[in-house]
C-alpha cells in the first residue's frame, strides 16, 4: 500500500491519541480522569509506535484504499452522508430512505440503465422495501421517526 496513506491514517490516530492524553491530564476534576489517563498513556504510546513505523515505511498490515475503490465508493459515501446527516431529519425517515435507496440502486445496480424494465424493477424494489420497513418499525416495533415531508 501507498506509504503516504499509512502515514496519514496512523498520523490521524496519533493526533487523536495526543488530544485524548492532553485532555485526560489537564481537565478537572482529576479523579474523574484517572481511568482515561491510564488508557490515554497506553493509547498514545501505541499510536506513536504505529505512526513512527509508518513514517519509516515499515507498516505492512492493511491494504489501504486504491483509487478505483475510492472512486467506486465515493457516490455511495456522499449519498450516505446526505441521507444520515441531513435528509433523514429534514425530509422524514421514510421519504429520505426511499430516495436514498432508489438513488443507491440506480448507481450501483449492474442492470443496464438504458432499459425501462431496469428502472421499473428498481422502483418496485424500493416500494416493497419501504413497505416492509414501515411494517417492521412503525407498526410492529412502534418506533416514532421524525416526519417532516410526506412521512
Amino acid at each position, binding site marked *: 500500500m501507498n506509504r503516504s496513506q*499509512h502515514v496519514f*491514517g*496512523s498520523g490521524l*490516530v496519533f493526533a*487523536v491519541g495526543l488530544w*485524548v492524553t492532553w*485532555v485526560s491530564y489537564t*481537565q478537572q*476534576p482529576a*479523579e*474523574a*480522569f*484517572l*481511568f*482515561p489517563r*491510564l*488508557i490515554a498513556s*497506553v*493509547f498514545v504510546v*501505541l*499510536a506513536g509506535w*504505529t505512526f513512527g513505523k509508518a513514517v519509516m515505511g515499515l*507498516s*505492512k*498490515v*492493511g*491494504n*489501504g*484504499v486504491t483509487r*478505483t*475503490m*475510492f472512486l*467506486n*465508493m465515493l*457516490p*455511495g*459515501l456522499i449519498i*450516505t*452522508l446526505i441521507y*444520515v*446527516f441531513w435528509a*433523514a*431529519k429534514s425530509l422524514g*425517515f421514510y421519504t429520505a*430512505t426511499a430516495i*436514498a*435507496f432508489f438513488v*443507491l*440502486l440506480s448507481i*450501483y*445496480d*449492474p442492470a443496464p440503465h438504458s432499459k425501462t424494465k431496469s428502472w421499473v424493477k428498481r422502483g418496485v*424494489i424500493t416500494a416493497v*422495501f419501504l413497505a416492509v*420497513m414501515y411494517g*417492521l*418499525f412503525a407498526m410492529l*416495533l412502534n*418506533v*416514532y421517526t421524525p416526519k417532516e415531508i410526506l412521512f
Partner: protein
Amino acid sequence: MDFIYYFGDVFTPLSFMLLLGGTIGGLILGATPGLSPTMAVALLIPFTFQLEAAQGLILLGAAYTSTVAGGAVSAILLKIPGAPANIATTLDGHTMAKQGQGARALQLSFLASAVGGIFGVLLLIFLTPVLAQWALAFGPSHLFWLAILGVTVIGTLDSASVVKGLLSGCIGLWLATIGFDDIMGAQRFIFHPALGGGINIIAALIGLFAIPQVLTMFAKGRHHTGAEVIEVQRHSILEAFRELFSRTRALSIGTLTGSIIGLIPGVGGQIAGLVAYDQTKKFSSEKDKFGTGHSEGVIAAESANNAMVGPSLVPLLTLSIPGSPTAAVLLGGLLIHGIFPGSDLFDNHPDVAWTFINSMLIGQVLMCIFGLYVAGLAARVAQVPQSVMAAIVLALSVFGAYSVQGSMGDVYVMACLGIGMFFLERFGFSAAPLVLGLILGPIAEANFIQGGMIADATVGKASYFLTGGLNLLLITVVLASIAYSVWMELLHRRYTTKEEAQA
C-alpha cells in the same frame, strides 16, 4: 441439571416463533455473502428491545447459530463463503456440487453442523455454571484485569498486527469513557452535543459492523455476483445420515477442534473450520481425495464451525469475556436488558440464562431440519446484487440506531464510527477489539475505581492490583497472549520475507 427445568420456556408460542424465525432468517442471512453473523446479530438487536430478555436472546442466539451454518449454502452452491468461517467448506463442498452432489453436500453440512453444534452447546451447559460459581471469588481488581484480558486477547489474536489490535482496543476503551463520569458527574471528551449521553453500545455495534460492509460493497462498484446457483438433485437423507456416522473420524476431529477453539477467547470460527479441515486431512487414509469433492472435508469444516458457537459463549456468560466478535455483540444484547454475565446471571436470572442456552440446543435441531429446505431459497437470496444488499443494510442501520432511544445523535454516532472503522480496517485495524473495549470499558473503569477506593483504605494501589495469586495469574495471561501474538507475527513476517526473497 438446572437446564432441564427451563426446557418448557423455549416452547411457549412466542419464544418458539422467535426461535423458528431467527433460525430461518439466520440461514438466509448467513448464505448472503457480505452479511457476516456478527453484523446480522448486531442488526437484530433493535428488534429485541420490546421483547423479554430471554426472548430477545433466543432470537439473537438462533440467528448466531444459523448464520454460521447458513454460510455453507453459498459456499457449496455458489463457491462464495457466506462468512469467513465457511471458507474451508468451499474446498470440497463446491466440488461436490459441481459433480451433481450438491444435495448430499448440503445434507452432510447441516447434519455435521447439528452434531457439532449440539456437542458445543452441551459443553456450554456443563461448563458454564461451574465457571460462573468460580467467578464469585473475583474481586474488583480481578474483574478489572479480566476486562483488560478480554480486550488484549481479542486485540492480539484477532488482528494481523498486535500493536494495531491493542491500539483498536485502546480506542474502544477511550470511546467508552466519553460522556458524564458516573462518580463525579464530570464531562469527559464531549466535543459534540450528540455525545452528551456517551456512546450508545448498540448504535456503535451497528455502525462498527454494518457500515464498513456497506462501504465495502459500494467500493466494488456496479459489480454482479456473477455466480450461478448449481441445481440441487434429490438425495436420500437417510443415506446422508449413514455416511455422516461412517465418517466418525472427520466428525469427531471437527467437533473437538471447534469446541476447543471456541473456548479460547478471540480466536473465533474463522480458523476453526480451516484447522479442523487440515487436521482431518492429516489423519485421513484418503488424503489425496481432499479438495476433489471429498465428504470428510465438508463434515470436518462444518462440524467445527458450529461446535465453536456454544463454547465461545462460555467465557462470555461466566467471565464477561466474549469468545468471538459475535459473542461480543450478544454481550451488548445482555447488557441492554440490564443483565450482567457471571454468577449474577445464573443466580438471579436462571430463567433467562437457561432458556437462552436451551433454545440454542433446540435451534441446532431446527437449523438442521429447515436448513435442507431453505438451502435453495437461501442460495437464490445470495445472488441478490450487492447494491440492493448495501442499500438494505444502510437503511436498517439508520432505523436500528434511531430506534435504540429515538435519538438522531445515535444515528450520527453510528455513521461516524462506521465510516471511521471502514478506513481504520483498510489500515489494518480491527473492529472486534474496538467493540470489546467499548463494551468492557465501563466494567474495567467501575472496578478500577472501586478497587482504588478499597486499596486506598487498605494495602495501597500497587499491592492491591499487582499482587495476589489470581491477579498475577491474570496479568501473566495478558502478557502471555501479547508475547505469543508478537512471536507469531515475527515468525509470519520472517516466513513471508523468506518467500519474497525466494520469489
